[in-house]
């Protein structure tokens, strides 16, 4: 029985010997020889040269031998395509054998031979096997279609295999059905056309769900995964699917349970909120998820990564179960770390005491990574639950007393964050921290400590002394520490100018002259310049109030979370990355479509006529961009070129970002710092004279100049408030709204623009009549946005025949509101001495966006969550701009950027705009990592969905290149 003997061959010319044995007359001997060949193959020896001899043994009625020869062929087919072709007849013959086991074996093996010339031979046998009388053969053939598709998708389509496969979905045998579902799902992943061709309808899904009970555990997973891809028509269908999926939660196989959870997490969203069943579904999820934590550790890990996603979407599911995430002594470390993560997500006022006592326990364990994460978690608790902050700080103090190096370092880092959240509180910890300076050898911990010293310099007696010891070793520090040291010394200097003058001079010298790091150098120059030209501004910048750090630093973006939840149980859900970021690009990103949502967000038919306007607008805008001189009226005098440059690039949010650069505190700000930092870097290069004045004078300035007044010419803060026309501002060309024929000789063209925070209606009146026209008056009808003329048309003299006049009319919002269809329709009446003319024009949406439409990231996140998912609409817009270009264009039109994140090569821009009537639109722009950029995906959310299509159109026009 022991096959081990086949591995022991010591003789030299073994290949030759094997060849002789393979040619033996005796069947037993041949079989022994084939086993030896396979054994050699197993240990990695190349036995490919025996191919013809092994293939000769293929015609045998011994099943075991046949399987071995097939296996051999499988392994060497690629390297011996010609010889493989020789064996194809046997495969074809075997696929019609009397024994179903052999028929299946033949078709199974043939499908795995990835040689082009074999493929054409497989079609006929496969067709027969798909209709075989034996279910064992049919289930094997179903998978074979997927194999064929993998090699040659067009063949599968041309030969009608897709239809045959679909027919098998109605097979009486459950395993055939399950394998067909698996094959169809795989094929549908390959291309959008295949996805369309293999789409399942509700009736089929229903049948599949009914077949669930009879399938093997694996078949159940195949079916549930396919069901999770289905898009139901309405809440009714969704509920009925849920009802039939719920019993699967009681299955013993963890994969079945997770796939059922995936379906339920998708479909519960579609059940109306007022339905009792919705809560019932959610309530059923917790127990099976908890049970998964008793499975094998690898499955626990998968479950925990998925629970991490689920609690981000619906924390209430696990709220009561926090104890199951308490760490056990013998959990593998990767399980411990995941549990800790979820624990923190579920921490709240109610359970903080328990959580904290657990965390304290963990902090005394031995595993360094785990301990670090636990200490960090204590800091997170402090920031998350205000009432526990004091208790957390005390716990951290206790931990610092342990003097264990990595515990102290981690504690310093989180205490910095706590100071960011609760400035000027818990200062009693500063003293013990200072006693542990020697323990800090990691850059982040050192940087954090230096930040604390800079921030609380006036409360630490020997702060200057401490910083100067750090400065002594400046060149050995990492960049992170150097940058922080620079900032902290400047901070301290601004607070105590007299005794730190030498120190600041030294550190500025080190940063600007001794360092070859551009970031450090540029920051050094900026400080230097700032300190020497305008100390008050320096104080305002460096000691500015810092934005609050947010509680949840590592929440996934809503869109990303939704995408990942659709991937529960797959690798994607474990990596927390979308599939296209870690697999080959062959599989397209499945766009999350939701017909129920689409129905709500679809453009109402009345609005659709507006579409016809869009292409026109687009083409005209692009012309504008090409000839900017026509539309831009430069208002900034030429000698102030610098100011002009600044206002073009430094739109307000970026200045904000720039200010953050001066102060690196919370970890949540990093993305902003990046962009701001670059920008300031450029700036430094442009405007600063390399010859730097001495700082002594500055010191006096700081002491003498009263706060708030300054006569220094360069005022960085007021610069961006001067109104400057931006070339990116979208101004549509005037359109003739009243042709001369209708207006009794008066032709009116109109466009709208936004200037100085007001809307202006720009009109051109052309007198094509024979008489002069005078006594113009204008009135707006009631409209959706309450627009009304703020004054009258400023036409003093009569308009002579064949002359035209351009007038600008300020518009305010004092009219009564009446909802128009489309929303932006505006009826206007113009009166002259002769007659009154009524015409209709359409106000472009973007002029309705007000200047105060910017949100901070935290408010944005909350607002996004508050708007129901049903109010989301998705649209693809063609553009070749990169993120900076997009932001510049949108911000020029009052669609403001909240933050930029880059995840897995994708850039996500979060934008907001506010209508004059306080209606907010939140959007997320996804720029894929493929170059060149050709289009971006925009999701918009608003409480009032009617405005969204119009906003889309505006954005499209803005981004047209």
């Amino acid at each position, binding site marked *: *029985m022991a096959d*081990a003997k086949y591995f022991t061959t010591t003789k030299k010319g073994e290949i030759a010997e094997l060849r002789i044995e393979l040619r033996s007359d005796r069947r037993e001997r041949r079989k022994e020889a084939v086993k030896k060949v*396979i054994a050699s193959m*197993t240990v990695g020896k190349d036995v490919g040269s025996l191919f013809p001899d092994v293939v000769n043994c293929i015609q045998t*009625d*011994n099943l*075991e031998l046949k*399987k*071995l020869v097939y*296996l051999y062929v499988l392994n060497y087919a690629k390297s011996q395509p010609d010889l493989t072709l020789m064996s194809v007849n046997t495969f074809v013959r075997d696929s019609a054998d009397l024994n179903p*086991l052999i028929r299946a*074996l033949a078709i*199974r093996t043939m*499908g795995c031979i990835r040689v082009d010339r074999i493929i054409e031979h497989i079609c006929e046998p496969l067709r027969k096997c798909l209709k075989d009388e034996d*279910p064992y053969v049919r*289930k094997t053939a179903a*998978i*074979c279609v997927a194999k064929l598709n993998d090699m040659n998708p067009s063949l599968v389509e041309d030969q009608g295999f897709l239809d045959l496969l679909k027919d098998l979905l109605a097979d009486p045998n*459950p395993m055939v059905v399950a*394998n067909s579902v*698996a094959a169809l*799902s*795989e094929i549908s992943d390959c291309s959008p056309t295949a996805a369309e061709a293999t789409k399942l309808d509700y009736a089929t899904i229903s049948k599949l769900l009914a077949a669930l*009970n009879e399938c*093997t*555990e*694996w078949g159940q*997973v*195949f079916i549930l*995964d396919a069901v999770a891809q289905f898009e139901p028509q309405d809440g009714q269908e969704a509920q009925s699917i849920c009802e039939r999926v719920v*019993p*699967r939660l*009681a299955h*013993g196989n*963890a*994969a079945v349970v997770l*796939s059922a959870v995936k379906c339920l997490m998708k479909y519960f969203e579609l059940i109306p909120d007022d339905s009792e069943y919705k809560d019932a579904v959610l309530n059923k999820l917790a*127990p099976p998820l*908890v*049970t998964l934590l*008793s499975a*094998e550790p690898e*499955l626990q*890990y*998968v479950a925990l990564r998925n629970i991490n996603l689920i609690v981000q979407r619906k924390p209430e599911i696990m709220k009561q179960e926090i104890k199951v995430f*308490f760490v*056990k*002594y*013998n959990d593998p470390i990767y399980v411990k*770390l995941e549990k800790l993560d979820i624990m923190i997500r579920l921490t709240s006022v109610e359970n903080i005491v328990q959580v904290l006592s*657990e965390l304290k326990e963990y902090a005394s364990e031995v595993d360094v*990574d785990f301990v670090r994460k636990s200490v960090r978690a204590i800091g997170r608790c402090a920031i998350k639950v205000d009432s526990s902050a004091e208790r957390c700080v005390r716990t951290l103090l206790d931990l610092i007393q342990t003097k264990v190096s990595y515990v102290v370092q981690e504690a310093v880092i989180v205490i910095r964050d706590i100071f960011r959240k609760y400035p000027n509180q818990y200062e009693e910890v500063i003293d013990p921290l200072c006693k542990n300076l020697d323990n800090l050898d990691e850059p982040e911990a050192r940087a954090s400590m230096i930040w604390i010293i800079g921030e609380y310099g006036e409360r630490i007696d020997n702060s200057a002394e401490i910083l100067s010891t750090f400065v002594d070793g400046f060149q050995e520090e990492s960049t992170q520490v150097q940058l922080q040291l620079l900032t902290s010394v400047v901070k301290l200097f601004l607070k105590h100018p007299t005794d730190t003058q030498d120190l600041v001079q030294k550190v500025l010298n080190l940063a600007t002259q001794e360092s070859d790091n551009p970031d450090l150098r540029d920051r050094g120059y900026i400080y230097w310049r700032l300190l020497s030209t305008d100390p008050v501004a320096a104080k305002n910048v460096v000691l500015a109030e810092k934005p609050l750090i947010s509680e949840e630093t590592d929440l996934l973006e809503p869109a990303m979370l939704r995408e990942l939840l659709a991937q529960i149980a*797959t*690798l*994607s859900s474990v990596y927390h990355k979308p*599939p296209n970021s*870690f*697999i*080959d690009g062959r*599989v397209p990103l499945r766009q999350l479509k939701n017909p129920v949502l689409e129905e709500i967000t679809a453009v109402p038919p009345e609005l659709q006529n507006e579409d016809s306007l869009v292409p026109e607008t687009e083409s005209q805008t692009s012309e504008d961009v090409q000839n900017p001189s026509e539309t831009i009226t430069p208002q900034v005098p030429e000698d102030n070129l610098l100011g002009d440059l600044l206002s073009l690039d430094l739109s307000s949010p970026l200045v904000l970002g720039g200010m953050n650069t001066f102060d690196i505190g919370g970890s949540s700000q990093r993305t902003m710092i990046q962009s701001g930092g670059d920008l300031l870097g450029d700036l430094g290069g442009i405007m600063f004279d390399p010859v730097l004045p001495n700082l002594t004078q500055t010191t006096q300035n700081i002491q003498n100049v009263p706060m708030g007044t300054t006569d220094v010419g360069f005022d960085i803060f007021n610069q961006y408030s001067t109104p400057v026309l931006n070339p990116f501002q979208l101004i549509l060309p005037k359109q003739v709204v009243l042709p001369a024929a209708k207006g009794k000789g008066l032709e009116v063209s109109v466009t709208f623009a936004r200037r100085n925070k007001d809307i202006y209606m720009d009109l051109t009146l052309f007198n094509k009549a024979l008489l002069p026209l005078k006594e113009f008056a204008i009135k707006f009808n009631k409209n959706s946005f309450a627009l009304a003329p703020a004054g009258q048309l400023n036409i003093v003299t009569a308009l002579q025949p064949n002359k035209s006049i351009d007038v600008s009319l300020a518009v305010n919002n004092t009219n009564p509101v009446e909802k128009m269809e489309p929303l932006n329709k505006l009826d206007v009446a113009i009166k002259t001495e002769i007659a009154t003319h009524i015409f209709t024009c359409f106000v472009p949406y973007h002029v309705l966006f007000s200047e105060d439409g910017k949100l901070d990231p935290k408010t944005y996140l909350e607002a996004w969550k508050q708007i129901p998912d049903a109010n989301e609409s998705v649209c693809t817009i063609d553009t070749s701009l990169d993120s900076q270009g997009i932001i510049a264009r949108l911000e020029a039109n009052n669609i403001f950027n909240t933050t930029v994140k880059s995840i897995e090569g994708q850039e996500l821009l979060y934008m907001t705009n506010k209508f004059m009537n306080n209606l907010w639109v939140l959007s997320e722009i996804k720029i894929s990592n493929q170059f060149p950029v050709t289009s971006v995906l925009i999701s918009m959310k608003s409480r009032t969905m009617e405005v969204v299509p119009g906003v889309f159109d505006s954005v499209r026009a803005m981004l047209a290149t």
Partner: protein
Amino acid sequence: MSLSGIYILDLKGKPLISRSYRGDTETNIIDKFISLALESEEEGIGQPIVTHLKHTFAYIKYNNLYLVGVTRRNANVAIIFTFLHKLRECFVEYFHELEEESIKDNFVLIYELLDELMDFGYPQTTETKILKEFITQESHKLVIAPRPPPAVTNAVSWRKEGIKYRKNECFLDVVESLNLLVNASGTVLRSEILGSIKLKVHLTGMPELRLGLNDKVMFENTGRNTNKGVELEDVKFHQCVRLSRFDVDRTISFIPPDGEFELMSYRLTTPVKPIIWIETSVERPGRSKAELLLKAIGQFKKKSTANNVEILVPVPSDAISPKFSCPYGIATYRPDLSAIRWIIKSFPGGKEYPLYLRYNLPSIQAEDTEAKAPITVKFEIPYFTTSGIQVRYLKIMEKSGYQALPWVRYITQNGDYQIRSN
């Protein structure tokens, strides 16, 4: 879903046997695996998933072997892990031991199994009982080649037809494991009962079985007195149980596989007091001395008895000559476990047994602190369930109408039973 291939490697990462299912990976890709896995282990994380370029390796370790699944797609990783464990089970059932030797000894069979268990990366038939019907260890010398048994693809894919027994019997074991986490002051942080109902079926033909438990939800549904009912928080069934039927009226009905299997498992998180509680008091007369008094207290019914109680009391690994005494049971010092192992063969409910322990520590303390291991307890209490679950009936119906006897046993044992020490 779908795996590109399965590899079995030894601890050094040398492939012992492998099967490629999709032909979409380089043959030598597996060479990258071991360094990645070791790196992850060395970093102290040891995640069961590692990646190389676009390849994902998902693996489990068993008996000095790595069972590795490779994929290049966004595979269903829950399937991969359940499948790898199933694979391990299947091999163990076939060759009793799964280790390097048994793989070499059965490589032909393993190739056959790998071919049958999975196709193109999709798991197929994994029921060992059915596989044994047509993939047999001895080679077939018979003229009649084996055919796929109908059960391979049937709705009842776990039981073959035509089984015969002279004496029809069914043995039912209710085993409850108690998971407990208690802190040093005696507060129960977490308690959980994991129950399992195991069946050994010796029944002829295709019998229909129905199991009745004192399930609280069912009592409520049928309007019975719910006092005696037990609320099962989460129930998991073997695939033979009709889940939709259970969902409708909580009836557990099924056609069982032949022989032994786990019919169902359940979980309860009702607060449980420690069945065996270890009270510890520590005295440190000097920096390098420690004296402990432990009391093991049986907090269960007086008429029950816990058997084979084994208490592991951790001592520091650098403890010098631990001295201990106990009037009941046998205690031994196990330096390899850094613990005192205290075994009490029979421990009646309500009793209290002490253990005195004294040891010295080196006067110089080690640099790195040691993990504070918890006290762990092992035990078995027959004829007793912590949850109070009871089998009310097990009905056996077969069309031939034979009488079969069900036998029921109950046992409570420790699960993950930890008492934190200070």
